[in-house]
Protein backbone atom coordinates (compact mmCIF):
# COMPACT_ATOMS: atom_id res chain seq x y z
CA UNK A 1 0.00 0.00 0.00
CA UNK A 2 1.39 3.39 -0.90
CA UNK A 3 1.72 6.10 1.70
CA UNK A 4 -1.18 8.05 0.27
CA UNK A 5 -3.40 4.97 0.41
CA UNK A 6 -2.43 4.44 4.03
CA UNK A 7 -3.19 8.04 4.92
CA UNK A 8 -6.44 7.81 3.03
CA UNK A 9 -7.39 4.61 4.85
CA UNK A 10 -6.71 6.30 8.16
CA UNK A 11 -8.81 9.36 7.32
CA UNK A 12 -11.53 7.03 6.10
CA UNK A 13 -11.52 5.17 9.41
CA UNK A 14 -12.16 8.46 11.20
CA UNK A 15 -14.94 9.36 8.74
CA UNK A 16 -16.61 5.99 9.26
CA UNK A 17 -16.60 6.65 12.99
CA UNK A 18 -17.93 10.17 12.27
CA UNK A 19 -15.16 11.50 14.46
CA UNK A 20 -12.67 13.45 12.41
CA UNK A 21 -9.10 14.33 13.41
CA UNK A 22 -10.27 17.51 15.10
CA UNK A 23 -13.29 15.84 16.69
CA UNK A 24 -15.90 17.11 14.25
CA UNK A 25 -18.69 15.22 12.56
CA UNK A 26 -18.64 14.80 8.79
CA UNK A 27 -21.29 17.42 8.23
CA UNK A 28 -20.06 20.09 10.58
CA UNK A 29 -17.99 23.15 9.87
CA UNK A 30 -15.25 24.53 12.06
CA UNK A 31 -15.93 27.89 13.68
CA UNK A 32 -16.61 30.51 11.00
CA UNK A 33 -15.77 34.15 11.66
CA UNK A 34 -16.45 37.01 9.25
CA UNK A 35 -14.90 40.44 9.83
CA UNK A 36 -15.60 43.44 7.64
CA UNK A 37 -13.55 46.41 6.52
CA UNK A 38 -10.13 44.96 7.32
CA UNK A 39 -8.44 47.15 4.73
CA UNK A 40 -9.15 50.86 4.56
CA UNK A 41 -7.35 51.03 1.21
CA UNK A 42 -9.93 48.80 -0.45
CA UNK A 43 -13.40 49.91 -1.47
CA UNK A 44 -14.61 46.93 0.52
CA UNK A 45 -12.87 44.11 2.33
CA UNK A 46 -13.40 41.17 4.62
CA UNK A 47 -11.56 38.52 6.55
CA UNK A 48 -12.95 35.02 6.85
CA UNK A 49 -11.63 32.46 9.28
CA UNK A 50 -12.79 28.88 9.15
CA UNK A 51 -10.96 27.20 11.99
CA UNK A 52 -7.26 27.85 11.33
CA UNK A 53 -7.88 28.73 7.69
CA UNK A 54 -7.85 32.45 7.01
CA UNK A 55 -8.35 34.46 3.83
CA UNK A 56 -8.73 38.14 3.05
CA UNK A 57 -10.71 39.54 0.15
CA UNK A 58 -10.61 43.09 -1.10
CA UNK A 59 -12.66 44.93 -3.69
CA UNK A 60 -11.25 47.69 -5.88
CA UNK A 61 -13.03 49.47 -8.70
CA UNK A 62 -11.85 51.10 -11.93
CA UNK A 63 -13.47 52.77 -14.89
CA UNK A 64 -13.10 51.19 -18.29
CA UNK A 65 -14.68 51.13 -21.74
CA UNK A 66 -17.40 48.46 -21.92
CA UNK A 67 -17.23 45.55 -24.34
CA UNK A 68 -18.90 46.48 -27.67
CA UNK A 69 -21.50 43.71 -27.30
CA UNK A 70 -22.52 44.84 -23.80
CA UNK A 71 -22.24 48.64 -23.97
CA UNK A 72 -24.35 49.15 -20.84
CA UNK A 73 -22.74 46.62 -18.56
CA UNK A 74 -19.93 46.89 -16.10
CA UNK A 75 -17.58 44.01 -15.53
CA UNK A 76 -16.19 41.74 -12.85
CA UNK A 77 -12.74 40.32 -12.28
CA UNK A 78 -11.71 37.84 -9.58
CA UNK A 79 -8.11 36.99 -8.78
CA UNK A 80 -6.66 34.75 -6.08
CA UNK A 81 -3.19 34.92 -4.58
CA UNK A 82 -2.09 31.76 -2.80
CA UNK A 83 0.49 33.63 -0.79
CA UNK A 84 3.67 31.82 0.25
CA UNK A 85 3.09 33.51 3.61
CA UNK A 86 0.12 31.21 4.15
CA UNK A 87 1.68 27.80 3.62
CA UNK A 88 4.98 26.11 2.78
CA UNK A 89 3.06 24.56 -0.13
CA UNK A 90 2.92 27.87 -1.98
CA UNK A 91 5.78 29.55 -3.80
CA UNK A 92 6.21 33.11 -5.02
CA UNK A 93 5.65 33.61 -8.72
CA UNK A 94 2.88 33.57 -11.29
CA UNK A 95 -0.47 32.04 -10.24
CA UNK A 96 -0.54 28.27 -10.01
CA UNK A 97 -3.31 26.15 -11.48
CA UNK A 98 -4.74 25.85 -7.98
CA UNK A 99 -4.91 29.64 -7.66
CA UNK A 100 -6.52 30.02 -11.06
CA UNK A 101 -9.15 27.39 -10.27
CA UNK A 102 -9.91 29.04 -6.93
CA UNK A 103 -10.40 32.43 -8.56
CA UNK A 104 -12.52 31.00 -11.34
CA UNK A 105 -14.80 29.06 -9.01
CA UNK A 106 -15.46 32.20 -6.97
CA UNK A 107 -15.86 34.23 -10.16
CA UNK A 108 -18.37 31.76 -11.61
CA UNK A 109 -20.53 31.86 -8.51
CA UNK A 110 -20.79 35.66 -8.59
CA UNK A 111 -21.08 35.93 -12.37
CA UNK A 112 -23.56 33.14 -13.03
CA UNK A 113 -25.90 34.05 -10.19
CA UNK A 114 -25.91 37.55 -11.67
CA UNK A 115 -25.08 38.70 -8.16
CA UNK A 116 -23.94 42.12 -9.33
CA UNK A 117 -26.42 44.26 -11.23
CA UNK A 118 -23.93 45.03 -13.99
CA UNK A 119 -26.32 47.41 -15.73
CA UNK A 120 -26.10 49.72 -12.73
CA UNK A 121 -22.33 49.81 -13.22
CA UNK A 122 -22.82 51.78 -16.40
CA UNK A 123 -21.71 55.42 -16.23
CA UNK A 124 -22.03 56.37 -19.91
CA UNK A 125 -23.36 53.86 -22.38
CA UNK A 126 -20.68 52.52 -24.68
CA UNK A 127 -18.08 54.74 -23.07
CA UNK A 128 -17.60 54.28 -19.36
CA UNK A 129 -18.52 51.52 -16.97
CA UNK A 130 -17.30 50.46 -13.55
CA UNK A 131 -15.17 47.36 -13.32
CA UNK A 132 -15.36 45.55 -9.99
CA UNK A 133 -12.18 43.70 -9.05
CA UNK A 134 -11.99 41.19 -6.23
CA UNK A 135 -8.65 39.98 -4.95
CA UNK A 136 -8.43 37.02 -2.61
CA UNK A 137 -5.29 36.63 -0.49
CA UNK A 138 -4.67 33.55 1.64
CA UNK A 139 -3.24 34.12 5.12
CA UNK A 140 -3.23 30.57 6.50
CA UNK A 141 -4.16 27.43 4.61
CA UNK A 142 -5.58 24.76 6.89
CA UNK A 143 -7.99 23.36 4.30
CA UNK A 144 -11.16 24.52 2.54
CA UNK A 145 -9.81 27.63 0.84
CA UNK A 146 -12.63 27.59 -1.74
CA UNK A 147 -15.49 28.03 0.74
CA UNK A 148 -13.54 30.58 2.76
CA UNK A 149 -12.64 32.59 -0.36
CA UNK A 150 -16.16 32.58 -1.70
CA UNK A 151 -17.55 33.81 1.61
CA UNK A 152 -14.85 36.47 2.00
CA UNK A 153 -15.48 37.74 -1.53
CA UNK A 154 -19.20 38.07 -0.93
CA UNK A 155 -18.64 39.80 2.41
CA UNK A 156 -16.19 42.26 0.79
CA UNK A 157 -18.68 42.99 -1.99
CA UNK A 158 -21.42 43.65 0.56
CA UNK A 159 -19.27 46.07 2.49
CA UNK A 160 -17.85 47.90 -0.53
CA UNK A 161 -18.69 51.55 -1.24
CA UNK A 162 -17.89 53.37 -4.46
CA UNK A 163 -15.27 56.10 -4.28
CA UNK A 164 -16.06 59.65 -5.35
CA UNK A 165 -16.01 60.21 -9.13
CA UNK A 166 -16.32 63.67 -10.67
CA UNK A 167 -16.66 62.52 -14.26
CA UNK A 168 -12.92 62.76 -14.88
CA UNK A 169 -11.03 61.22 -12.00
CA UNK A 170 -11.72 58.73 -9.24
CA UNK A 171 -10.95 60.06 -5.77
CA UNK A 172 -10.12 56.82 -4.01
CA UNK A 173 -9.59 58.63 -0.72
CA UNK A 174 -13.23 59.68 -0.50
CA UNK A 175 -15.86 56.99 -0.25
CA UNK A 176 -19.47 57.63 -1.18
CA UNK A 177 -22.43 55.94 0.45
CA UNK A 178 -23.18 53.98 -2.73
CA UNK A 179 -22.84 50.24 -2.37
CA UNK A 180 -22.09 47.80 -5.18
CA UNK A 181 -25.54 46.91 -6.59
CA UNK A 182 -26.07 43.34 -5.40
CA UNK A 183 -29.04 41.29 -6.53
CA UNK A 184 -28.02 37.89 -5.17
CA UNK A 185 -25.71 36.49 -2.54
CA UNK A 186 -24.03 33.37 -3.86
CA UNK A 187 -22.36 31.08 -1.33
CA UNK A 188 -20.10 28.18 -2.27
CA UNK A 189 -20.01 25.00 -0.25
CA UNK A 190 -17.64 22.23 -1.22
CA UNK A 191 -18.59 18.67 -0.36
CA UNK A 192 -15.77 16.13 -0.33
CA UNK A 193 -15.91 12.46 -1.05
CA UNK A 194 -13.64 9.62 0.01
CA UNK A 195 -14.97 6.21 -0.98
CA UNK A 196 -18.65 6.34 0.15
CA UNK A 197 -18.10 9.04 2.75
CA UNK A 198 -19.25 12.61 2.16
CA UNK A 199 -18.10 15.49 4.34
CA UNK A 200 -17.63 19.26 4.37
CA UNK A 201 -14.98 21.73 5.48
CA UNK A 202 -11.88 19.52 5.16
CA UNK A 203 -8.67 19.78 7.11
CA UNK A 204 -5.51 19.66 4.99
CA UNK A 205 -5.01 16.00 5.97
CA UNK A 206 -8.44 15.22 4.55
CA UNK A 207 -8.17 17.42 1.47
CA UNK A 208 -4.86 15.78 0.53
CA UNK A 209 -6.42 12.32 0.27
CA UNK A 210 -9.86 13.08 -1.15
CA UNK A 211 -11.24 11.16 -4.12
CA UNK A 212 -13.47 13.94 -5.42
CA UNK A 213 -15.10 17.18 -4.43
CA UNK A 214 -18.06 19.15 -5.63
CA UNK A 215 -18.38 22.87 -5.08
CA UNK A 216 -22.02 23.91 -5.16
CA UNK A 217 -22.75 27.62 -5.26
CA UNK A 218 -26.28 28.55 -4.28
CA UNK A 219 -28.28 31.71 -3.73
CA UNK A 220 -30.70 32.47 -0.89
CA UNK A 221 -33.69 31.32 -2.98
CA UNK A 222 -32.23 27.81 -3.03
CA UNK A 223 -31.09 27.86 -6.65
CA UNK A 224 -27.82 26.36 -7.77
CA UNK A 225 -25.89 28.85 -9.87
CA UNK A 226 -22.50 27.23 -10.30
CA UNK A 227 -20.82 23.87 -9.88
CA UNK A 228 -17.26 22.66 -9.93
CA UNK A 229 -16.29 19.03 -9.67
CA UNK A 230 -12.70 18.45 -8.66
CA UNK A 231 -10.38 15.54 -7.98
CA UNK A 232 -9.62 12.39 -9.93
CA UNK A 233 -12.41 10.35 -8.38
CA UNK A 234 -15.87 9.75 -9.81
CA UNK A 235 -19.30 10.88 -8.63
CA UNK A 236 -22.57 9.03 -9.19
CA UNK A 237 -25.84 10.83 -9.76
CA UNK A 238 -26.85 9.72 -6.24
CA UNK A 239 -23.63 11.22 -4.86
CA UNK A 240 -24.33 14.48 -6.59
CA UNK A 241 -27.85 14.56 -5.24
CA UNK A 242 -26.64 13.98 -1.69
CA UNK A 243 -23.82 16.48 -2.10
CA UNK A 244 -26.04 19.27 -3.40
CA UNK A 245 -28.54 18.66 -0.59
CA UNK A 246 -25.79 18.86 1.99
CA UNK A 247 -24.29 21.93 0.34
CA UNK A 248 -27.60 23.75 0.39
CA UNK A 249 -28.10 23.01 4.06
CA UNK A 250 -24.63 24.24 4.89
CA UNK A 251 -24.95 27.36 2.74
CA UNK A 252 -27.79 28.48 5.00
CA UNK A 253 -25.50 28.11 7.99
CA UNK A 254 -22.80 30.25 6.36
CA UNK A 255 -25.35 32.77 5.14
CA UNK A 256 -26.22 33.49 8.75
CA UNK A 257 -22.62 34.52 9.39
CA UNK A 258 -23.04 37.47 7.05
CA UNK A 259 -24.69 40.54 8.39
Amino acid at each position, binding site marked *: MSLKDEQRAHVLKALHADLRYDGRKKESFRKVIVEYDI*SKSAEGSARVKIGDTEVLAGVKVAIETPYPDTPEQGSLMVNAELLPLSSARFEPGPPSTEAVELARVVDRGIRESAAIDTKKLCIAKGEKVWMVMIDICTINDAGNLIDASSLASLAALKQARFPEYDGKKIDFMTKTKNPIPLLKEPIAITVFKIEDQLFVDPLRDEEDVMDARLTVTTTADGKICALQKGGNGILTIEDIDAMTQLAMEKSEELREKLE
Partner: protein
Amino acid sequence: MTYKKRLDGRAVDETRKISAKVGIIKNAQGSAVFQIGATTAIAAVYGPRELHPKFLQNPDTGVLRCNYNMMPFSGHGERVRPGQNRRAKEISMVTEQALAPALNLKNFPNAVVDVFIELPQTDAGTRCAGICAASMALADAGFEMKDLVVAIAVGRVDDHLVADLNYDEESYECDAGVADIPVAMLANSGEITLLQDDGDITAQQLKEALQLAKKVGKKIYEVQKQALKEKFTGEEK
Protein backbone atom coordinates in the same frame (compact mmCIF):
# COMPACT_ATOMS: atom_id res chain seq x y z
CA MET B 1 2.11 77.56 2.70
CA THR B 2 4.10 76.78 5.78
CA TYR B 3 3.78 73.72 7.91
CA LYS B 4 2.86 74.89 11.42
CA LYS B 5 0.97 72.05 12.94
CA ARG B 6 0.95 68.43 11.79
CA LEU B 7 -1.96 67.61 9.53
CA ASP B 8 -3.39 65.04 11.91
CA GLY B 9 -2.57 67.05 15.03
CA ARG B 10 0.25 64.84 16.31
CA ALA B 11 3.29 66.18 18.15
CA VAL B 12 6.43 66.16 16.01
CA ASP B 13 7.87 63.15 17.80
CA GLU B 14 4.56 61.35 18.08
CA THR B 15 3.84 58.25 16.03
CA ARG B 16 0.45 57.16 14.85
CA LYS B 17 -1.24 54.50 16.97
CA ILE B 18 0.84 51.33 17.05
CA SER B 19 -0.32 47.82 17.80
CA ALA B 20 1.23 44.42 17.29
CA LYS B 21 0.47 40.75 17.70
CA VAL B 22 2.59 37.63 17.42
CA GLY B 23 1.78 34.09 16.30
CA ILE B 24 -1.04 34.92 13.90
CA ILE B 25 -0.24 32.38 11.17
CA LYS B 26 -0.27 28.78 12.36
CA ASN B 27 1.49 27.28 9.36
CA ALA B 28 4.51 29.54 9.76
CA GLN B 29 7.53 28.95 11.99
CA GLY B 30 7.00 32.47 13.30
CA SER B 31 4.61 35.30 12.45
CA ALA B 32 3.50 38.76 13.47
CA VAL B 33 1.33 41.68 12.49
CA PHE B 34 2.44 45.27 13.05
CA GLN B 35 0.08 48.19 12.61
CA ILE B 36 0.98 51.83 12.61
CA GLY B 37 -1.89 54.14 11.80
CA ALA B 38 -3.61 52.78 8.71
CA THR B 39 -0.55 50.81 7.61
CA THR B 40 -0.71 47.10 8.39
CA ALA B 41 2.15 44.68 7.79
CA ILE B 42 1.93 40.92 8.26
CA ALA B 43 5.09 38.80 8.33
CA ALA B 44 5.56 35.06 8.29
CA VAL B 45 8.81 33.08 8.61
CA TYR B 46 9.34 29.71 6.94
CA GLY B 47 12.49 27.68 7.37
CA PRO B 48 15.30 27.12 7.62
CA ARG B 49 14.71 25.05 4.53
CA GLU B 50 16.65 23.86 1.54
CA LEU B 51 17.80 26.70 -0.70
CA HIS B 52 17.37 26.43 -4.47
CA PRO B 53 19.06 27.20 -6.79
CA LYS B 54 22.08 25.63 -5.18
CA PHE B 55 24.57 28.31 -6.25
CA LEU B 56 22.89 30.70 -3.80
CA GLN B 57 23.78 28.43 -0.90
CA ASN B 58 26.39 29.59 1.58
CA PRO B 59 28.33 26.81 3.33
CA ASP B 60 29.17 29.14 6.25
CA THR B 61 25.71 30.31 7.18
CA GLY B 62 22.02 30.24 6.46
CA VAL B 63 20.71 32.93 4.13
CA LEU B 64 17.89 35.33 4.95
CA ARG B 65 15.49 35.96 2.09
CA CYS B 66 12.76 38.58 2.35
CA ASN B 67 9.80 39.09 0.09
CA TYR B 68 7.83 42.33 0.41
CA ASN B 69 4.45 42.47 -1.27
CA MET B 70 1.51 44.83 -1.32
CA MET B 71 -1.85 43.12 -1.60
CA PRO B 72 -3.66 44.21 -4.78
CA PHE B 73 -6.27 46.18 -2.79
CA SER B 74 -3.82 47.81 -0.38
CA GLY B 75 -2.82 50.83 -2.46
CA HIS B 76 -3.88 54.40 -1.96
CA GLY B 77 -5.28 54.69 -5.45
CA GLU B 78 -5.90 52.12 -8.13
CA ARG B 79 -5.60 48.37 -7.68
CA VAL B 80 -1.98 47.28 -7.51
CA ARG B 81 -1.15 44.62 -10.04
CA PRO B 82 0.02 41.45 -8.32
CA GLY B 83 3.57 40.23 -8.82
CA GLN B 84 6.96 41.69 -8.09
CA ASN B 85 7.76 45.14 -9.41
CA ARG B 86 11.00 47.12 -9.14
CA ARG B 87 9.88 48.88 -5.98
CA ALA B 88 8.97 45.65 -4.18
CA LYS B 89 12.25 44.11 -5.25
CA GLU B 90 14.30 46.92 -3.79
CA ILE B 91 12.30 47.01 -0.57
CA SER B 92 12.72 43.25 -0.20
CA MET B 93 16.47 43.71 -0.49
CA VAL B 94 16.82 46.58 1.97
CA THR B 95 14.56 44.69 4.39
CA GLU B 96 16.95 41.72 4.27
CA GLN B 97 19.85 44.03 4.96
CA ALA B 98 17.99 45.76 7.77
CA LEU B 99 17.35 42.48 9.57
CA ALA B 100 20.53 40.54 8.83
CA PRO B 101 22.78 42.32 11.39
CA ALA B 102 20.53 41.18 14.25
CA LEU B 103 20.29 37.60 13.11
CA ASN B 104 22.68 34.67 13.49
CA LEU B 105 22.04 31.82 11.06
CA LYS B 106 25.44 30.13 11.46
CA ASN B 107 23.75 26.92 12.59
CA PHE B 108 22.06 26.54 9.24
CA PRO B 109 24.72 26.34 6.51
CA ASN B 110 23.37 26.16 2.94
CA ALA B 111 19.81 26.72 4.11
CA VAL B 112 17.44 29.63 3.59
CA VAL B 113 15.12 31.39 6.01
CA ASP B 114 12.20 32.93 4.15
CA VAL B 115 10.37 35.98 5.46
CA PHE B 116 7.19 36.93 3.62
CA ILE B 117 5.82 40.39 4.28
CA GLU B 118 2.32 41.26 3.10
CA LEU B 119 0.48 44.56 3.35
CA PRO B 120 -3.32 44.46 3.43
CA GLN B 121 -3.64 48.23 3.85
CA THR B 122 -1.15 51.05 3.51
CA ASP B 123 -0.76 54.69 4.48
CA ALA B 124 2.99 55.35 4.09
CA GLY B 125 5.76 53.80 6.15
CA THR B 126 5.20 50.33 4.72
CA ARG B 127 8.81 49.18 4.56
CA CYS B 128 9.35 50.20 8.18
CA ALA B 129 6.17 48.45 9.33
CA GLY B 130 7.27 45.40 7.35
CA ILE B 131 10.66 45.37 9.06
CA CYS B 132 9.06 45.71 12.51
CA ALA B 133 6.72 42.80 11.78
CA ALA B 134 9.47 40.66 10.28
CA SER B 135 11.76 41.24 13.24
CA MET B 136 9.06 40.02 15.63
CA ALA B 137 8.24 37.05 13.41
CA LEU B 138 11.91 36.01 13.38
CA ALA B 139 12.08 36.26 17.18
CA ASP B 140 8.84 34.28 17.44
CA ALA B 141 10.37 31.62 15.18
CA GLY B 142 13.11 31.20 17.79
CA PHE B 143 16.14 32.33 15.83
CA GLU B 144 19.25 33.61 17.54
CA MET B 145 19.06 37.41 17.46
CA LYS B 146 21.18 39.79 19.45
CA ASP B 147 18.47 42.41 19.28
CA LEU B 148 15.12 43.19 17.73
CA VAL B 149 15.09 45.53 14.77
CA VAL B 150 12.87 48.59 14.94
CA ALA B 151 12.09 50.83 12.00
CA ILE B 152 10.42 54.20 11.56
CA ALA B 153 10.28 56.89 8.94
CA VAL B 154 11.46 60.29 10.09
CA GLY B 155 11.80 63.36 7.95
CA ARG B 156 11.31 66.96 7.24
CA VAL B 157 8.02 68.50 6.26
CA ASP B 158 8.63 72.09 5.27
CA ASP B 159 10.95 73.18 8.11
CA HIS B 160 9.80 70.72 10.77
CA LEU B 161 11.49 67.47 11.67
CA VAL B 162 8.82 64.87 12.32
CA ALA B 163 8.53 61.18 13.10
CA ASP B 164 6.34 58.68 11.27
CA LEU B 165 5.18 60.58 8.21
CA ASN B 166 1.79 59.53 6.94
CA TYR B 167 0.69 59.67 3.32
CA ASP B 168 -0.62 63.23 3.55
CA GLU B 169 2.68 64.43 4.95
CA GLU B 170 4.73 62.50 2.42
CA SER B 171 2.81 64.23 -0.33
CA TYR B 172 2.55 67.62 1.39
CA GLU B 173 3.09 70.50 -1.00
CA CYS B 174 5.24 73.41 0.15
CA ASP B 175 8.18 75.39 -1.16
CA ALA B 176 10.80 73.60 0.87
CA GLY B 177 9.41 70.18 0.00
CA VAL B 178 9.53 67.04 2.06
CA ALA B 179 12.32 64.69 3.03
CA ASP B 180 11.25 61.15 3.88
CA ILE B 181 13.86 59.08 5.69
CA PRO B 182 13.10 55.46 6.54
CA VAL B 183 15.44 54.25 9.28
CA ALA B 184 15.88 50.83 10.86
CA MET B 185 18.12 50.11 13.80
CA LEU B 186 19.00 47.60 16.46
CA ALA B 187 16.59 48.54 19.21
CA ASN B 188 19.02 48.66 22.13
CA SER B 189 22.28 49.84 20.59
CA GLY B 190 20.66 52.21 18.10
CA GLU B 191 23.03 50.97 15.39
CA ILE B 192 21.49 51.72 12.02
CA THR B 193 20.70 48.94 9.56
CA LEU B 194 18.51 50.75 7.02
CA LEU B 195 18.83 54.30 5.84
CA GLN B 196 17.26 55.87 2.81
CA ASP B 197 16.23 59.38 2.02
CA ASP B 198 13.86 60.92 -0.49
CA GLY B 199 14.27 64.67 -0.47
CA ASP B 200 16.48 67.61 0.56
CA ILE B 201 17.98 67.55 4.01
CA THR B 202 21.00 69.23 5.62
CA ALA B 203 23.63 67.21 7.44
CA GLN B 204 22.58 68.86 10.70
CA GLN B 205 18.90 68.04 10.14
CA LEU B 206 19.80 64.47 9.30
CA LYS B 207 21.66 64.13 12.59
CA GLU B 208 18.66 65.44 14.49
CA ALA B 209 16.27 63.28 12.50
CA LEU B 210 18.29 60.19 13.38
CA GLN B 211 18.23 61.12 17.07
CA LEU B 212 14.47 61.40 16.76
CA ALA B 213 14.31 57.98 15.10
CA LYS B 214 16.32 56.50 17.95
CA LYS B 215 13.93 57.94 20.51
CA VAL B 216 10.86 56.66 18.69
CA GLY B 217 12.57 53.31 18.13
CA LYS B 218 12.61 52.69 21.87
CA LYS B 219 8.85 53.04 21.97
CA ILE B 220 8.43 50.62 19.10
CA TYR B 221 10.69 48.12 20.88
CA GLU B 222 8.36 48.24 23.90
CA VAL B 223 5.38 47.42 21.69
CA GLN B 224 7.24 44.52 20.05
CA LYS B 225 8.38 43.23 23.43
CA GLN B 226 4.86 43.27 24.86
CA ALA B 227 3.43 41.48 21.83
CA LEU B 228 6.07 38.75 21.96
CA LYS B 229 5.55 38.19 25.67
CA GLU B 230 1.79 38.18 25.35
CA LYS B 231 1.88 35.25 22.98
CA PHE B 232 3.13 33.09 25.84
CA THR B 233 1.48 34.68 28.84
CA GLY B 234 -1.79 35.79 27.27
CA GLU B 235 -3.37 32.38 26.84
CA GLU B 236 -3.53 31.61 30.57
CA LYS B 237 -6.81 29.88 31.32
